[in-house]
């Protein structure tokens, strides 16, 4: 019996998760291919939810595909697009289909995406969504009504260790921990000293921290992300490193950079694992893991674990 994601998080092993970006349309071939490529290599696989406010095939659809194919999905739910009724409803269906992990996000702002005139809902925020899950686990919905069948999830959230100023982020991090976040997948980490300081603070809390590793494929992409992707700050020295790579070699350099970051984090035991984000380049995640010296990080058996998730 494969261990649950929660069991893996608590196993003391270095945890690796990654993510799938669904297509902008009904052609899910590539997405299925990426799922097959990664599902057995990582502890669990996120499916993003209209990342950067770009309309896409939904996270729930991707998670169902991962379940069908024998992987362990992490459902990403943002509060940008749906009110509390719709969010709770999605948790109900996810639970009935065997999805057991949820990442709760507020969501990128509407204007950064490709439907700039859409209404941003934000009926709940990420902290309130975490509490909603815990409330539903106790058998009641947000209206205080009894549920005919409750849910149970391993719930997580995000944090931005490189936010400036950091103090408001830490305050919110604590609220998320208190509201039930068992794990955090961080925004991209590039500054290890800063991350070490963040982890010194974060270690006092029981939640597991998976450092976000965002693959850089070119200097141009790194600059673009700095300007357009909320929460990402690529330092100039990495942009220069990519720019100085020989023609056609920038991607390989990016893979090396990511691999080295992961290796350093693991060696220093700075955190509980990593979350690898190769946006649009899911096919190189295995190479990143190899560059990091990680073998297949998905435990096949769980010591002493019995019963269904």
């Amino acid at each position, binding site marked *: 019996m494969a261990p649950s994601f929660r069991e893996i998080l608590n196993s003391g092993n270095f945890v690796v998760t990654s993510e799938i970006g669904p297509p902008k349309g009904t052609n899910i071939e590539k997405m299925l291919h990426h799922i097959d490529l990664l599902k057995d290599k990582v502890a669990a696989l996120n499916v993003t939810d209209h990342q950067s406010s770009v309309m896409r095939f939904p996270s729930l659809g991707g998670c169902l595909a991962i379940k069908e194919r024998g992987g362990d999905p992490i459902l990403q739910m943002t509060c*940008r697009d749906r009110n509390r009724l719709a969010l709770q409803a999605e948790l109900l269906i996810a639970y009935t289909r065997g999805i057991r992990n949820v990442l709760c996000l507020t969501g990128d*702002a509407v204007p950064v995406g490709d439907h700039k005139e859409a209404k941003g809902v934000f*009926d709940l925020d*990420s902290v309130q969504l975490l509490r909603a899950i815990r409330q539903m686990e106790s058998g009641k919905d947000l209206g205080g009504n009894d549920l005919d069948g409750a849910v149970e999830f391993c719930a997580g959230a995000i944090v931005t260790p490189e936010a400036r100023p950091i*103090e*408001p982020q830490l305050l919110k991090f604590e609220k998320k921990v208190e509201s039930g976040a068992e794990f955090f997948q961080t925004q991209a980490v590039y500054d290890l000293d800063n991350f070490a300081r963040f982890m010194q603070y974060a270690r006092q809390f029981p939640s597991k921290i998976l450092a976000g590793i965002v693959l850089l494929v070119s200097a141009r992409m790194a600059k673009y992300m700095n300007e357009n992707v909320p*929460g990402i700050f690529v330092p100039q020295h990495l942009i220069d490193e990519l720019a100085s790579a020989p023609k056609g070699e920038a991607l390989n350099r990016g893979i090396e950079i990511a691999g080295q970051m992961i290796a350093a984090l693991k060696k220093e035991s700075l955190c509980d694992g990593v979350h690898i984000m190769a946006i649009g380049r899911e096919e190189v995640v295995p190479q990143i893991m190899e560059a990091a010296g990680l073998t297949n990080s998905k435990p096949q058996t769980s010591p002493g674990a019995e019963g269904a998730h």
Partner: protein
Amino acid sequence: MKSITKQKPFDEIKEQLDRFDRVYIAGCGTCATMTRTGGREEVMNMKGRLEELGKLVTGWMVIPTACDEMTETAMREDKGAIQNANCILVMACALGVHRASLYIDKPVIPALDTLFIGLEDSPGDFREVCAQCGQCVLGETAGICPLTACHKGLLNGPCGGTNNGKCEVDKEKDCAWTLIYQRLEAQGRLDLMRKYHAPRNSNVTLSPRMIKITSQA
């Protein structure tokens, strides 16, 4: 507190007036004059432009306060010119447009878009600071409204997209929750931000909201 308006693109006004050849123009002497969107000067300017289009401007007026019920009296004073028109172009905020529409059977066309209720920082600079949500939390956010100043309207802010105290949506715009943090910290009241804020009530009063204030006997 002012009703902040912006003049509609002239092409849009032109399109709305397409089927009308005789127009009466009504401006407003209060907010729209301050925002230079519906005062005397703007009314005269609009008159000129409509006449260039070949419309007959049957008359015009700058109503002292277009949203006030006195507008009924004001309009009666120029009854003839108004009757002579086949529509009224109102250069006031939506309250003024609506008020005018209560007293005239003819089509009432807005020349302005009403944007927000604005606080005047300095002459000509207006800023939205209130969303009229009916659940004021300014006492817990050091005077900064999270619904207006935070693009996502977060009650448990900030979000992960804030950078250097600026908002992920507009780099010129301050992150409301970074400001709130700094102010509360200076006041020694960070516990107000640290505590959990439950989801807000979007239906404190159902729209359209109204209130009847009756005096105590």
